[in-house]
């Protein structure tokens, strides 16, 4: 290295370049030598004393270093040129902002011009093809980049929008009279607000009102446009419509102030559901979530006392969650707070020692974007669960892509996102069209469908079918089908049905409210008065998140890297010969349309978990790839079973 730095000096490479390259000992060496040179020059040029020349030399050197640091602190990017002033401005239409659900709905009039619109402007990632190649390499066991994840800082540095781009767009928004509220730390989103009139003018669009079911909503009747020079940097103008209103996917079945009595329609306790999905051996192997963090995406608040009561009643120990309030949200219970309790209690039931971070944001496009984005920017959780969803057709594709950018960052960082696939079976838009739910439709998210699980005494697994039920009150079932937007990811390439698009769900778990989970919830806003029996894929998603937290901990104890984004590994385990059977393959029932059958199906995905088998298969699979890491052989039989 010394030879190298000397050669650099002798060939006249700028000193800041040397410093930058050879930080540490080599950098110090170069700095000292440079300092001596500078000192001599200063002394000779300005005829000052030795101490003054040294002082000046230090300042001169620091000035050079600061300049070089500034110039080197970002990778080279091709910043967009400034918007020309004067003359006609060429505009570029941003496609994907029309809501598919409104295609057949006539407008009832223009949106009131004074309506306050909150925008979440999603910016395009840079170097997307290279990012996709990196994401593929990270899940390809043959690649040296397998499971090599990046930090949020690295992701922003490599793939995030450049600050120059941000400045350009902010300037444009200001000039249009919009109020810029915030810029996400990873530069992926700019939030801004203004009246409908201002927004229409800024983006050359028209906002119309529509009657959708029992709601009056607004949405653009034409795609927005922006000046050509900033168009390539903008992925979406989120918030131009208020059609998508995320809802929790849980179904309440029965309520009572005292613990539910046993009946012919039982509720499942943490112990029972754990036993059915073969969790106890994991817990006995001390894989109870210790050291793992599960993030929960929420659009409502919760009562901490409820969670404490649930934990105490079920002997799960004390483990206080931490809240992350996003976009001005507060932890106040609203009508969706039962979802928050369900998520927290499901995770507590199966990963009692895992830390829980509750990300709470406002229920709006801007709030949803900001909350997911906060989860990946913080990068504190290896596993994330969301049970808030919306019919895929209720979002323009621009918004779907903006969310996908967030999930790509999460995947690149090694985070697993689990999302409920919806409770409307194959008809997520609750009409006669086949549709799936978002974000379970995203290929960088693990979609969790629903089953109906029959248990014997003390949680003994008996049988399981795809969950669906037709009734006069409405048909329900585990969400599943084919995305109309996202292309088929590599991990689904060999599956049927053969077409070009993403298949949902990936996995499933019990979601039948008639065989629901016992949870504890109080609150006037949700009419909770104590113990409840809850079902829906809302419960299945946190169940899977908790199990993967346990499995990750188990893998670490086995000196194996955790699952990271789990989809590829789960598909490999399910579709190739393994020593243990990691999934219950569901072969009976439908999700109101798609039948369950042997192998992958659109009703239940790969199936439901056998947690202990999955953990051991994953340990074996990942250790065979990471040969450098010592791995004790997984025991042939589970402890205590």
């Amino acid at each position: 290295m010394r030879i190298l730095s000397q050669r650099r000096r002798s060939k006249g490479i700028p000193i800041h370049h040397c410093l930058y390259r050879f930080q540490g000992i080599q950098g110090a060496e170069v700095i000292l030598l440079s300092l001596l040179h500078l000192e001599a020059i200063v002394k000779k040029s300005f005829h000052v004393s030795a101490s003054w020349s040294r002082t000046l030399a230090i300042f001169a050197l620091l000035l050079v270093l600061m300049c070089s640091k500034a110039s080197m602190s970002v990778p080279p990017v091709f910043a967009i040129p400034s918007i020309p002033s004067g003359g006609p401005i060429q505009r570029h239409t941003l496609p994907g902002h029309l809501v598919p659900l409104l295609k057949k709905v006539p407008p009832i009039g223009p949106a009131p011009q004074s309506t306050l619109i909150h925008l979440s402007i999603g910016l395009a990632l840079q170097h997307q093809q290279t990012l996709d190649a990196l994401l593929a390499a990270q899940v390809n066991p043959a690649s040296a980049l397998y499971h090599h994840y990046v930090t949020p800082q690295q992701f922003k540095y490599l793939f995030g929008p450049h600050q120059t781009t941000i400045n350009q767009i902010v300037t444009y928004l200001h000039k249009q009279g919009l109020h810029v509220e915030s810029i996400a730390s990873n530069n992926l989103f700019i939030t801004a607000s203004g009246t409908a009139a201002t927004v229409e003018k800024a983006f050359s669009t028209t906002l119309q009102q529509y009657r959708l079911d029992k709601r009056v909503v607004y949405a653009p009747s034409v795609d927005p446009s922006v000046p050509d020079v900033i168009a390539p940097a903008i992925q979406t103008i989120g918030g131009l419509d208020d059609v998508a209103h995320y809802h929790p996917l849980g179904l309440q079945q029965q309520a009572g102030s005292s613990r539910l009595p046993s009946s012919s329609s039982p509720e499942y306790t943490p112990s029972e559901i754990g036993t059915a999905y073969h969790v106890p051996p994991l817990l006995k192997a001390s894989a109870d979530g210790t050291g793992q963090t599960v993030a929960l995406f929420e659009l409502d608040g919760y009562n901490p006392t409820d969670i404490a009561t649930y934990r105490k009643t079920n002997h799960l120990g004390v483990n206080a969650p931490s809240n992350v309030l996003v976009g001005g949200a507060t932890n106040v219970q609203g009508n969706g707070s039962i979802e928050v309790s369900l998520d927290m209690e499901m995770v507590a039931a199966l990963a009692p020692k895992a830390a829980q971070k509750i990300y709470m944001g406002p229920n709006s496009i801007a709030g949803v974007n900001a909350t997911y984005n906060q989860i990946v920017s913080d990068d504190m959780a290896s596993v994330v669960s969301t049970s808030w969803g919306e019919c895929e057709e209720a979002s323009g594709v621009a918004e779907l892509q903006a969310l996908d950018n967030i999930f790509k960052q999460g995947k690149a960082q090694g985070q697993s996102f689990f999302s409920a696939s919806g409770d409307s079976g194959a008809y997520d838009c609750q009409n006669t069209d086949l549709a799936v739910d978002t974000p379970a439709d995203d290929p960088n998210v693990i979609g969790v469908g629903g089953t109906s699980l029959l248990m014997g005494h003390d949680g003994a697994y008996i049988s399981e079918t795809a969950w669906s039920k037709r009734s006069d009150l409405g048909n329900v079932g585990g969400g599943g089908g084919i995305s109309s937007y996202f292309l088929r990811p590599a991990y689904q390439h060999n599956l049927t049905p053969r077409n070009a698009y993403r298949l949902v769900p990936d996995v499933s778990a019990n979601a039948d409210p008639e065989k629901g989970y016992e949870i504890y919830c109080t609150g006037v806003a949700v009419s909770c008065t104590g113990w409840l029996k809850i079902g829906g894929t809302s419960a299945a998603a946190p169940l899977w998140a908790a199990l993967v937290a346990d499995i990750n901990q188990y893998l670490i104890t086995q000196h194996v890297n955790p699952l990271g984004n789990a989809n590829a590994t789960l598909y490999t385990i399910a579709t190739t010969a393994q020593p243990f059977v990691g999934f219950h393959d569901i072969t009976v029932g439908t999700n109101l349309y798609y039948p369950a059958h042997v192998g992958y199906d659109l009703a239940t995905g790969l199936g439901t978990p056998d947690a202990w088998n999955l953990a051991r298969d994953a340990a074996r699979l990942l250790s065979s790839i990471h040969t450098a890491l010592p791995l004790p052989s997984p025991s042939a039989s589970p402890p205590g079973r």
Partner: protein
Amino acid sequence: MNNRNLSYYAAFVWGMILLFMIASPLPHAVASPFRSALPTIIEAVITDSGSTNTCPYTIDVWLNGTATYTVTVCHLNPLKGSGTLTPALTIQFFEHLIVAQPFSRFPPLQCVKPVSFRTTTIVQYGKSHILDISCPNTDRRITNLYTDSTQIQQALGFSPLRKV
């Protein structure tokens, strides 16, 4: 202590503080225990020493495919440029860098070269480097890096040959 000395010490202290800030590394994997085993280094530097007939150059390659180069000595002003490498070449290069880790396993490579084309090619990845990868070698981990380096230089479209 007189004023002169005071200013000297103040400058020195501020200098050290700023120096520490400046020398702090670029974003590296610091982090969550759930993936600490496999940190990712996102930048590599290829340095060619130049020779009688070729100009020295340095290429910075980033994991997002961006690359900048500086060709020195042969030009009045250093020739600087940048480009974007193909995803395939980028990923392949970083894969080869990881496969070749740790560089310390390879002794410094030496070979006989034409006296007027005696270049040395070095790859720096993280805190370690490997030289001279342009020497003939039977180890594919090294030859792959040299092939990549050549492809990267060609993809950036500059010539290290001296202009007459």
